[in-house]
């Protein structure tokens, strides 16, 4: 995001106020229009991806640091949801907050070590973190269920006055999926707000200074370690809360899901969406998150795909999805490194120009 004055206001222009309002309105209305489980599931996953991606963006987007350790923090959150939410029956706000706190604390412990390193080295160290994380998840049986994993289907999703598993307003009952949809997107919205505020704040501008010019930032008196660790803590905390929701949505948590490919997925989301832009993280999540399900749903329209080998076709749907993912990552980095958000900004600029030149 730009660092000029307009960026200091959350919603600088009328255009942005109107478009944000529209986005929120559409978001609220979606469950009234969409009732099919397929699309709701897709949107819930996208919402969780958005939560985690907004979190990762705080670190990568604002400090230029890339971490492949995101999966580890997501895992910490998921097991918190399983242990406190499902096994111990804590209420929703408590286990969700606990996940955030645990993620933040671990981030605060790991951060100072990890952030002494940059670039290639940080990537490799966070990769190590993921391997160590899986080892802990596999062996801390009492909490994680060990290699067998543990169920989260009993996790409390009630807020006292309303239960996201089944809530209703006069004239409409919502399904569990629709409830989850609201829950994750409200959280994603909060994360976006928090992260947009970080951008505007003094620390936020400092973080971007860190990203752009390490040494210069230090010279003008920006305390690098403090802000960088701060970014790491917020990022880990958001990741853990996203992980908690992911654990609940999956209904089951197992140790090997928190691997580097999950981390890559999140990095890919912010790259495809547009690194450094809060809206990019959300756009990326909405685009990449549901892609595999959509490809699968419309696979019969793509003759080169097969579901069962021997039906004809060249590659299986699942393999194609992985290939598509790898290819998109490469294509975006090569041809549109600023991601979907940049495409959107360009479209917006064109729209404005068109309007101002009657």
């Amino acid at each position, binding site marked *: 995001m730009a660092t000029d004055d307009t960026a200091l206001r959350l919603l600088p222009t009328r255009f942005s106020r109107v478009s944000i309002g529209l986005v929120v309105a559409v978001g609220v209305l979606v469950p009234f229009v969409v009732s099919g489980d397929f699309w709701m599931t897709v949107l819930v996953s996208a919402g969780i991806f958005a939560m985690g991606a907004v979190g990762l963006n705080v670190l990568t987007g604002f400090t230029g640091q890339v971490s492949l350790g995101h999966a580890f923090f997501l895992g910490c959150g998921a097991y918190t949801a399983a242990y406190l939410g499902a096994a111990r029956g804590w209420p929703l706000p408590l286990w969700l907050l606990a996940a955030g706190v645990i993620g933040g604390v671990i981030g605060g412990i790991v951060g100072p070590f990890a952030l002494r390193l940059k670039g290639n080295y940080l990537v490799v160290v966070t990769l190590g973190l993921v391997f160590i994380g899986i080892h802990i998840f596999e062996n801390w049986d009492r909490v994680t269920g060990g290699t067998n994993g543990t*169920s989260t289907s009993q996790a409390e999703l009630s807020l006292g006055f309303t239960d996201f598993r089944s809530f209703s307003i006069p004239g409409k009952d919502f399904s569990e999926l629709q409830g989850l949809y609201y829950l994750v997107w409200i959280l994603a919205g909060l994360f976006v707000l928090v992260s947009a505020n970080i951008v505007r704040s003094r620390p936020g501008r400092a973080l971007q200074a860190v990203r752009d010019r390490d040494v210069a930032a230090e010279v003008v008196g920006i305390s690098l370690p403090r802000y960088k660790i701060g970014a790491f803590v917020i990022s880990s905390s958001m990741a853990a809360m996203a992980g908690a929701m992911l654990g609940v949505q999956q209904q089951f948590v197992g140790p090997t899901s928190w691997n580097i490919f999950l981390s890559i997925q999140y990095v890919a989301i912010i790259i495809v969406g547009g690194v450094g832009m809060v809206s990019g993280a959300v756009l990326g999540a909405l685009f990449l998150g549901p892609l595999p399900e959509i490809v699968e749903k419309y696979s019969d329209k793509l003759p080169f795909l097969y579901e069962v080998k021997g039906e004809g076709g060249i590659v299986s749907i699942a393999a194609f999805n992985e290939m598509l993912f790898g290819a998109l990552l490469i294509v975006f980095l090569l041809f549109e490194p600023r991601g979907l958000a940049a495409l959107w900004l360009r479209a917006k600029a064109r729209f404005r120009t068109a309007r101002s030149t009657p």
Partner: protein
Amino acid sequence: MNQHVHHPARTRRLVRLVAGLLALGLVAAACGDDDDDATTPATGETTAPSGDTTAATTAGPGDTTTSGDSTESTEPPPDATTTVPAPVGDPEEVDGFDGETITVGAVLDQTGPLAFVGTDLLVGAQTYWDFVNEELGGIAGKYKVEIKVADSKNEAPVAVQAYQQIKGDVVMFTNILGTPVTKAMAEFLVEDNILAIPGSLAGEWVRNPNFLPYSAPYEIEMINGVEFWQTNLEGAGQTACTFAQNDSYGESGLTGLEFAAEKYGFEFAADTTYNSGDTDFTAQVTELADAGCEVVFSVSTPREQTGLMTGARSLGFEPVFIGTLPSFLSLLAGGDNGAAFANFYLVGDGGEFGDPEIPGMKNFLDRVEKYGDGAAPSTFLLTGYTATLAAHAALEKAVALGDLSHEGLVNAVQQLGEVDFEGLAGNYTYGPPDERVPPIESAIFRFDPAKTDRNLLALQEVVESPFAKEYVFAG
């Protein structure tokens, strides 16, 4: 993650098979090999003799369903039983059944390191359904069967989500891969009351009403493995040890081994474990060697078992290895690895792979040739095929009872008697979960480098431990 290298049929079961058919007093031709004949009654299906206690109390004569029978009758056989109150007509349209086509679900690895296993299991299942659809006209001669597949990526949570996504589109789940995945799905299958064929032979599925297991459980395999060692290899007094995968699959085999150790009165001198994916086993080998192990019982998967044995051999340590069904893959025993298999025994079910004397095996080979789209018959293909025999029996029963709903299928299994796996696996007596009787015999195979077909195992012995019957499966 378990790869189920499934084995083949047991020749010595023919006597029992024939006896069962005589007791039925019908379709003696059912065990005929002439599978190309569309009038052959469906396989896998024969069922309990009426004298069988299970069948007598629950199902009665209705149990003698001869599915897809020769007359291509449009009605399921008349049901005389009083325990099924509703008049039996065409099943209603329900999830996974649109009045014409029955859809069954598969949740298995389509990507990742076990994708080739998942693929083979599916081709095996598809081969069998092609046969049912083409030659029998479908279930009850009219309902075609289709498979809906979801990728589990060897991850329990992915599998649970895949399950949630397709559960509304299928009548039951017929192909799952792996103990952890099955374990994760179990809770949800019970909650939704949906029937599934488990993706492993762990004993914990035996008493679960939402599972339709087949073949002898790992616990029984290992008890029979101990029997074989004690009796046939004259192992009494020798030092025995274990090598197990560090997960629920390993645990189920170890449970059987501990039971056997108590019954036969010995103790294991060393217990070693490994993590799936390990490649170096020097430490386990030295521990086993230092303990002076003369026999090592393995609850493992092929890569690791091969790694253990090649590692042991390279250190000059060559005890007898006795492994569970998933511990062996012919492919890995080829070439230079072969030397390490000299003292390897596999506890399995059925007879030798490719043995045309076994009726089910002959059918299998013929059908793969006909419907397999060029796939080479493999042990995994056979596993997918064999599991589908059980699914076929359950679906026929459900149609006969006029209810293809999720509940209807769970109920159908409760009324299913003994199912004959044509010698591809031991006959399994279903019925209410607490009365189920899994096969308790095991076939012991020995590695045979002289064999040239795809399976390098030769049938050595069929054993049944006197204690196998005593093993109590937890409810």
